[in-house]
């Protein structure tokens, strides 16, 4: 860096229009094939294939006149990851410089390896490794320069397959009636005419007897935790962890329903604990179970295990 008090001036040196350079028959053939979308190497007198072709091999011998199509599948040898490209780099996002050997060639070429879109400064992806199989990405308009290959990129190993089905769900009579009750702050169930068991919410049928059920029963919002899980895996569709999903046997019901238990540290929830429904403010009610925010403990002694053991 010049000292701040030095006199400085910018200067660019460029031959107007660029030099006109003869490439000779060997390099010329290589560039012609590049223009036409092919990779070729050249056979040496010793029988190897040089890629990219040069006119004289490492022993100083002229190469033969035999050109060999190589690639398009290539293998990455060594590489350097560029997390922050410079302005004159070929890509404006992270990429790698790599030594790339086409199948059928004995030597490698340095070129650009594009592994996809990464944030500036990104660490090298796991896919970047020696042995990675790649192919050239050709420019649409080619002129016979090394830049006719925009970059190399890995083969297609997976596709993204969006699958979507749109439904309109109908609640059916039983669930509509149940949610209608919930909209009024009531918890409804059905008593089976055969076994006498009370199902909350009702299904409109008894799964044991296979008969329709119609006798409506209202149960209170109080009940007993029969068993539960403490969920520690975050899920966008679930409450914040840790949350307790519990089987709550409402008083008067014969089958427990799964509900959120809150208002108590997860580690203090117990089998047999008495709980009550906590309703949202009435103005927020709709035909949805969300009207009940959760169940919270009530100040009553726990129910002995013997009294809940048949509901597990």
């Amino acid at each position, binding site marked *: 860096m010049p000292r701040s008090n030095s006199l400085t001036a910018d200067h660019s040196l460029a031959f107007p229009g660029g030099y006109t350079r003869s490439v000779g028959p060997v390099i010329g053939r290589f560039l012609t094939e590049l223009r036409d979308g092919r990779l070729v190497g050249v056979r040496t007198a010793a029988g190897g294939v040089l890629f990219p072709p040069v006119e004289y091999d490492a022993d100083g011998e002229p190469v033969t006149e035999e050109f060999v199509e190589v690639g398009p599948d290539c293998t990455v040898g060594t590489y350097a990851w560029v997390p922050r490209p410079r302005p004159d780099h070929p890509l404006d996002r992270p990429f790698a410089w790599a030594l790339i050997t086409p199948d059928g060639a004995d030597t490698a070429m340095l070129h650009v390896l594009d592994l996809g879109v990464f944030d500036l400064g990104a660490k090298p992806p796991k896919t970047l490794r020696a042995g990675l199989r790649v192919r050239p990405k050709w420019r649409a308009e080619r002129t016979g320069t090394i830049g006719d290959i925009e970059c190399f990129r890995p083969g297609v190993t*997976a596709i993204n397959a969006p699958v979507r089905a749109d*439904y309109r*769900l109908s609640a059916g009579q039983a669930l509509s009636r149940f949610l209608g009750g919930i909209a009024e702050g009531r918890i409804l169930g059905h008593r089976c005419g055969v076994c006498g*068991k009370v199902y909350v919410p009702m299904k409109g049928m008894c799964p*044991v007897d296979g008969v329709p059920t119609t006798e409506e029963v209202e149960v209170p919002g109080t009940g007993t935790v029969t*068993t539960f899980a*403490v969920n520690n895996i975050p899920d966008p569709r679930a409450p914040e962890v840790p949350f307790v999903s*519990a089987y709550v046997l409402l008083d008067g019901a*014969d089958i427990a329903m799964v509900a959120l238990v809150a208002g108590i540290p997860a580690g203090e929830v117990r089998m047999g604990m008495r709980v009550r429904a906590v309703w949202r403010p009435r103005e927020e009610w709709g035909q949805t179970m*969300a009207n009940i925010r959760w169940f919270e403990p009530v100040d009553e002694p726990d129910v002995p295990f013997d009294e809940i053991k048949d509901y597990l």
Partner: protein
Amino acid sequence: MGEACAVIGVGQTHYRSRRNDVSIAGLVREAALRALEDAGLTFKDIDAVVVGKAPDLFEGVMMPEAYLADALGARGKPMMRVHTAGSVGGSTALVAAGLVQGGVHDRVLVVAWEKQSESNATWALSTHPPLTPSLVVGAGGYFAPHIRAYMRRTGCPDHIGTLVAVKDRQNALKNPYAHLRIEGISREMVEATPMLWEPIRYLETCPSSDGAAAMVLASESAARQAPNPPAWVHGAAMRSEPIFFAGRDTVNPQAGKDCAADVYSQAGITDPRRDLDCAEVYVPFSWYEPMWLENLGFCGDGEGWKLTESGATALDGDIPWNASGGVLSSNPIGASGLIRFAEAAQQVRGLAGDHQVDGARRALGHAYGGGAQFYAMWVVGSARP
């Protein structure tokens, strides 16, 4: 039970987190070709193909049986797909066995698979439709309360699940196909892992695997021509029950007890711990070993954890369970049941390799699925029944 039926070929892929190198078709074909090679057959020799996998939502491939007909050489042959949630691998084997026992076919190829890496099973099992919201996230979220109920009901100590988690992973080290191969697996290692769905710890759950398994089932005349020893089907049974009904025993479901009673009766088994030499049982969460020991009648109610604790179910115990490492070590869900059935067969064929139970002559293969609603079991033996 009808005509005799035998397993004459078994093929498995290696179970891995990701098999990015193959398509689903390539995966199932890998297992199928290995089973055919074991049976000394080619696709041309097969009369019918039965395939099974867990819900289509797992990979988002609808009607995969249609897509896989070519890969499984099914052109011009009957092909069908079975689906009973997690028990599907077992049910698929039993549907195929039924085609042989019914005298319909001589050689049936049965294949089951899952490629879990293509999506996320927890998402697919918890679709949370509107109107009936659910708090349950994934299989662990469903089974954890029932495990807690088992522990409370039987007084099972906290460390029993850890013992099974260690034992099955030790067995997996002897199985070259197993997915989880944890050198030096120990109680301390399991106990150091977090509670995902208390009371289930991370290492007390099954992995998420890609893989496929296949078998060739044969009639007696076809089995007599097989190059390797057959495993004869001594009993086969399926049962199911609804997920919710008043009075359901979710810890010790009646459908499982009924299914076991049926399969034992067919096989002439009165005391499974004594009469069987080993068992491959669907244990996706370690606590299900003591739970199923009771459900399957290997001991009395409340005694399962004591059997586990005593070491009876270890590879050197008197009734080894999951010598292969089980579902806890490899879980391509749709295939997991079929792997149990196939591993039971390999034991009585004497072809289980390093995890062979010495002198095994009769073995149980078991699978369950859904909310412990679907059961599929078979008993296979080295002798023709």
